[in-house]
């Protein structure tokens, strides 16, 4: 009597609807991530794995290529994410103006890159940054440089190409989030500020930015997750080179597992470095934004 017909039906249906998804997530996410943790304590080659305790972690600290991949990934993160988000915010602010002529055109144009396939655009960028390619030709013609830059052959410039490429691909994507959030802000707030004599830059900095904080948090977390997993662009544009200067953690894991003689245990350890980084940075960003709000 206490749990009648209706309560039972709620229970059965509530689980019924979510069960297919939960089963699939269990098999293809939870099980692998736990397995991967266990594997990270295994050493050996190919399928011949044995328990190695903390051997893989020791190996991490002594592996110059891992250190390189980690450093590269963090450099990409530290430079690319802020640059992209600031650009996205600027573009969104410029577009959030109902009197702007050609607004729809600009918005569509800036958004367009995130329609491309990662592979296709990576290859296009590779061709544009060739030694005598269109980018160097343009910079020479504009007298910005005297000699062509060895974009893909120089460790520093190769990083610049990767950062440029990712920024090109994802700025419009983030901009759309900001634009949508800006359009939800009550316009009369800006009108009140104008009547109070607040200049445009201050309206942006003291009104728009604080009100966008939740979206900025969201975009910075997804961008961080994306950049920490960076794989497609370095693998297609630079293959991690020259001399591992654009090698990322994901690319290193791929190489360890599928390129060389597979070293699954060690690769799993490296992959957990990404897991920990994602978790740490998400928490950090979450608190950074919350701190300033109170």
């Amino acid at each position, binding site marked *: 009597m206490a749990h009648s017909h209706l309560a039972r039906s*709620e229970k059965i*249906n*509530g*689980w*019924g*609807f*979510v069960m*297919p*998804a939960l089963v*699939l997530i269990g098999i*293809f*996410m939870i*099980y*692998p*991530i736990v397995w991967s943790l266990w*594997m990270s304590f295994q050493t050996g080659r190919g*399928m011949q794995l044995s328990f190695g305790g903390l051997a893989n972690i020791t190996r991490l600290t002594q592996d110059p290529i891992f250190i390189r991949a980690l450093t590269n990934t963090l450099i990409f993160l530290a430079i690319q994410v802020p640059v992209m988000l600031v650009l996205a915010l*600027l*573009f969104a602010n410029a577009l959030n103006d109902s009197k*702007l002529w050609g607004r729809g055109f*600009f918005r569509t144009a*800036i958004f*367009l890159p995130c*329609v*491309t*396939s990662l*592979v*296709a*655009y990576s*290859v*296009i*960028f590779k*061709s*544009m940054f*060739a*030694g*005598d*390619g*269109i*980018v*160097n030709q*343009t910079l020479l013609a504009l007298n910005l440089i005297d000699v062509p830059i060895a974009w893909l052959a120089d460790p520093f410039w190769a990083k610049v190409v990767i950062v440029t490429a990712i920024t*090109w691909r994802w*700025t*419009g*994507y983030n901009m*759309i989030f900001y634009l*949508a959030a800006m359009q939800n802000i009550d316009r009369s707030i800006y009108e009140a500020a104008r009547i109070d004599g607040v200049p445009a830059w201050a309206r942006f900095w003291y009104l728009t930015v604080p009100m966008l904080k939740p979206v900025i948090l969201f975009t910075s977390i997804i961008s961080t997750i994306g950049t920490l*997993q960076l794989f*497609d662009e370095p693998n*297609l544009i630079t293959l991690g080179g020259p001399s591992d200067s654009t090698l990322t953690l994901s690319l290193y894991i*791929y190489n360890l597992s*599928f390129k060389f003689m597979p070293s*699954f245990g060690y690769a*799993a350890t490296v*992959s*957990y470095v*990404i*897991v920990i980084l*994602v978790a740490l940075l998400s928490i950090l960003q979450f608190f950074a934004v919350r701190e300033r709000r109170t």
Partner: protein
Amino acid sequence: MSNPVAFLGRTAQYVLLSIAAFVSVFPFFWMVLGATNTSPDIIRGRIAPGTALFDNIGKFLTQIDLPRVLFNSLFIAGVGSALTLIVASMAGYGFEMFRSRVRERVFSLLLLMLSIPFAALMIPLFIMMANLKLINTYQAIILPSIASIFIIFYFRQATKAFPHELRDAARIDGLKEWQIFFYVYMPVMRSTYAAATIIVFMANWNNYLWPLIVLQTNDMFTMTLAIAALNAGYTPDFGVIMVGAIIATLPTLVIFFLLQRRFVEGMLGAVK
């Protein structure tokens, strides 16, 4: 524009946006131009239409089994997307319409799992697929992609706008819960489904890393893998690659221009 400061501001605004728009669109232009040029011309930065278009297309067609590759891509993206939409929308509906404390906990766990990087899954997944003898099959690509947490989250958010009274009315009209889902929820939420279809299809169509690991023979290659294969080696033929890039970009570009609003809605959907 009486005010000089306002005039300057407006000018700066147009300059900024024009540069951004130019930089954003130029690679598309470069891609189309490139398809008409020879590879040496492309890497020499030739910025004029060339005469190599048919040559490039011809070479592309001899190096890539286009119908087969297109079929692979469409099949994986199509079937994968359809399954994702059904499974994820059911879950989103279930989490939102049937509230329970345990399920709320499970949902929070799922949200945490959103940040699990694929790199941490790919090795065990690969071994799993190897053990199941699924390497180099469509299933190996489709199965892990079905239960997308992001799409579950998206549907749950969208379901908040689905009126509970409609479900009540349908219950009184004698529909079973699964009938309410199929006959009322799905048609009522069709614009949500449209937006979700676009993002899911695009993600599947553009997927690179996992197919790269699992698909091993040319006859199983997707469009992205085919282009990546053309790109391998020391002197890739960029003219041919551009033809491939156009073919790979076209479907998503067409969807984007036809359904621009849905497209943007889909991307924004989960945040609100």
